[in-house]
């Protein structure tokens, strides 16, 4: 097959950092090509050059045999390259159809040039005919599940007919297993329509599921490009290629000692429509895992354990004492710390520096004499915490928005360490976190569990299975008991996806 895109000798320098160093990259029509690499390896820079956001310092870009200059996002679109951001920006109050054609609505002739809704609907139907996928486009985007939002964003990118290259930046990071299936179905549709897809992900198993070829980046250089068949046949370790070292198991060893006292006992916790009849016990010294897809009630359960959502029935017992959690303030005082699933909106004040964030959950500890802030000691403690969670870069005065996803998560964890809680609840702890930082986060969880109880709630089955000592699955709001203490990965997966009691 002929290459539709050919990039040769691409270079990009930011200050002293060489983000891309003499990179070649080519793409064939109708292939799904995964870009792999830890954060900062250069894959984002490459796609930003390709989508016209950054300009390259050197090198050539050839599309369908013609050398082009991608000076701006508009120029990239004109060349047939469309991209979908990691967090697609859609108008929540508009329907799917309105979002797809945002900015290029069909107009009626005459006064006011009103939007021609019928024509829009017709165009949308045509689009769905080109790429048959099951989706209700009349729904408001704000009410759509994550996968439908992603699909709307992709259809928006493809609403211009000449698009031949589609860039997807971590499209699956917020999706459940089930939702992934429908996204992958759409991707296969696009592929058969001859559209080439560049696909960034941190999840390696997806590459073999959907990809044709993959390219590994490391430190601004292209390490290798292989077809997935070659990759499987040659038994290369992709993490090894990404990290340039043998990464061992990213999961820490399980707890050695028997778990201690019961810290948190949940009995028959119920909130109609969200979760029902949830019971479990969390002990000091262990990591308890709850595997639940998005929509299984897992996220809501974590909020009920943190005083954000009031359960309708059931009891929560802390160290033998039944409690009612009135609000997060109350939950924190009773020794519960939540590392929320959406760290950007729930976990961090992005515009503020590391110290502000690390001390925020326990301002009482950070102040003296009824409230005077202890600037010096806060800085000192924050520096120690930053060292403990291996924050990178190790700067305390940077706004946390400038840190990568993994390091932002480390800051949230440091916030919990500063609070010194008995119970740590992690929700989707490694979404958007690269594999190197993931290992650090898992190790931190294990370290925390030495003196506290750790509850990990995640829609990533491997994560729950890999990190937890005991685990349950949550299916449609109900816990599915997995019979023995250590179910196999597949037992856990089928329990969470189908509610199967193995």
């Amino acid at each position, binding site marked *: 097959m002929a290459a539709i895109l050919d990039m040769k000798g691409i270079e990009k320098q930011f200050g002293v950092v060489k983000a891309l160093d003499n990179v070649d990259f080519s793409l064939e029509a109708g292939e799904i090509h995964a870009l792999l690499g830890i954060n900062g390896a250069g894959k984002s820079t490459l796609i930003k050059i390709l989508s016209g956001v950054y300009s390259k310092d050197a090198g050539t870009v050839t599309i369908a045999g013609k050398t082009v200059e991608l000076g701006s996002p508009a120029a990239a679109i004109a060349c047939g390259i469309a991209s979908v951001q990691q967090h697609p920006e859609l108008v929540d109050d508009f329907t799917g159809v309105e979002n797809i054609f945002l900015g290029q609505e069909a107009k009626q002739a005459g006064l006011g040039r009103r939007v021609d809704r019928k024509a829009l609907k017709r165009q949308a139907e045509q689009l769905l005919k080109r790429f048959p996928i099951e989706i209700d486009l009349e729904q408001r985007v704000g009410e759509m599940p994550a996968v439908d939002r992603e699909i709307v964003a992709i259809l928006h990118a493809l609403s211009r007919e000449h698009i031949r290259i589609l860039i997807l930046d971590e499209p699956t990071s917020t999706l459940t297993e089930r939702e992934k299936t429908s996204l992958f179905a759409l991707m296969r549709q696009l592929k058969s329509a001859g559209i080439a897809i560049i696909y960034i992900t941190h999840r390696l198993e997806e590459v073999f599921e959907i990809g044709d070829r993959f390219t590994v980046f490391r430190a601004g250089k292209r390490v290798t490009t292989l077809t997935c068949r070659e990759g499987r046949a040659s038994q290369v370790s992709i993490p090894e290629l990404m990290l340039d070292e043998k990464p061992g198991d990213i999961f820490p060893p399980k707890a050695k000692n028997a778990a201690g006292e019961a810290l948190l006992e949940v009995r028959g916790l119920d909130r109609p429509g969200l979760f029902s009849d949830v019971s479990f016990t969390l002990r000091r010294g262990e990591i308890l895992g709850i595997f639940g897809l998005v929509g299984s009630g897992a996220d809501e359960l974590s909020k009920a354990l943190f005083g954000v959502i009031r359960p309708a029935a059931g009891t929560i017992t802390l160290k033998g004492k039944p409690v009612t959690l009135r609000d997060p303030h109350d939950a924190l005082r009773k020794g519960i710390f939540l590392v929320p699933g959406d760290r950007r909106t729930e976990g961090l004040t*992005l515009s503020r520096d590391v110290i502000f964030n690390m001390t925020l959950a326990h301002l009482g500890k950070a102040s003296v004499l009824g409230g005077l*802030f202890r600037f010096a000691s806060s800085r000192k403690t924050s520096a120690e915490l930053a060292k403990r969670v291996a924050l990178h870069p190790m700067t305390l005065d940077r706004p946390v928005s400038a840190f990568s996803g993994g390091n932002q998560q480390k800051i949230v964890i440091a916030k919990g360490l500063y609070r010194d809680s008995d119970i740590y609840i992690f929700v989707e702890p490694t979404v958007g976190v690269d594999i190197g930082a993931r290992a650090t986060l898992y190790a931190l969880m294990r370290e925390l569990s030495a003196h506290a109880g750790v509850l990990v709630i995640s829609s990533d089955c491997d994560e729950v299975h890999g990190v937890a000592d005991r685990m349950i699955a949550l299916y449609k709001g109900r816990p599915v008991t997995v019979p023995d203490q250590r179910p196999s990965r597949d037992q856990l997966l089928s329990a969470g996806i189908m509610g199967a009691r193995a």
Partner: protein
Amino acid sequence: MMALKSSPLTLRLLAFVLLLGVIAAVFQSFAPAYLSENNLHALLRHMSVNGLTAIGLTFVIVVRHFDLSFPGVASLGAMTLGWLLANDYSLAESVAGGIGIGLLAGLINGSVISYLRLPDIVTTIATGGVAVGLSYFYSNGTSLSENFFMSGILDLNDSKFLSLDMPVVILLGAAIVAFIVLHCTRFGRAFYATGENRRSALFSGIRVKAYVLTAFGLCGALACLAITLLVASSGAANVTAGNQLMMPAFAAVYLGAALFGAPSIPATLAGTLLMSAMLNGFTLLAIPYYYSDAIVSTVLILAIGIFDPKLTTLVGGLFSRKPAR
């Protein structure tokens, strides 16, 4: 221009001093009395009123809300103060009564907005309207000045403390307390956290609703403290007393925030000084307030525009591109 964008504090301070110097030079050239000792005293007294209101408003802006009720609330506070004085209450009781009314109005605003989740702009317009209506209740709208001489309220304007005018002392005192609260305590952190990301503040155990409530309470109370000084200087309580508080207070907070990058107490004080320097100059030139308000509002828009990082980058780009080619 590029240096301004990266904005170290010294550069921002320099810009502030420069702006103040330009204002002073312009007015001095038109009205030679501008920099006279008498007028500077008047300017600072005037600044005290606007400064106190603006400090209260700063708290509301920091938690990312709006209060449009404080002019009306201040009028009500003024009339309450006047009525209490006219009915032989002591000075302390009367002043406390006036400020208490402001606090109460602020707390009503705050609880309706944070606990009942009504939109802030509409709510405060409404409570402001109610307050104006209530202020007519005491005297059917005529101004109150009975007992003013005897009560000693005029001393709030006329007396001195360590050779500083009393209003200036009160402003400085309030500013120092507000500075410590907002910038040196856990409460200040909580105010900013609430404003910058309410959800993450909630998840960090901060009682965001209580902080929003407090911000509105402070805004109402400080507006009424400010009006107390205005009543003291004019010698009568008037139902329209609060009318001229709105624009200078908002302008001070936003001008300060634009100059120094974020709303804060020093920024608000700097903004107030610039506003008062202009408003005082216009008074000296006998320009009626409706024109001076218009001019000051224009300056406000220009200032915010100039210090907006997007615009600075754009302009900076224009200047730096030319020599490069």
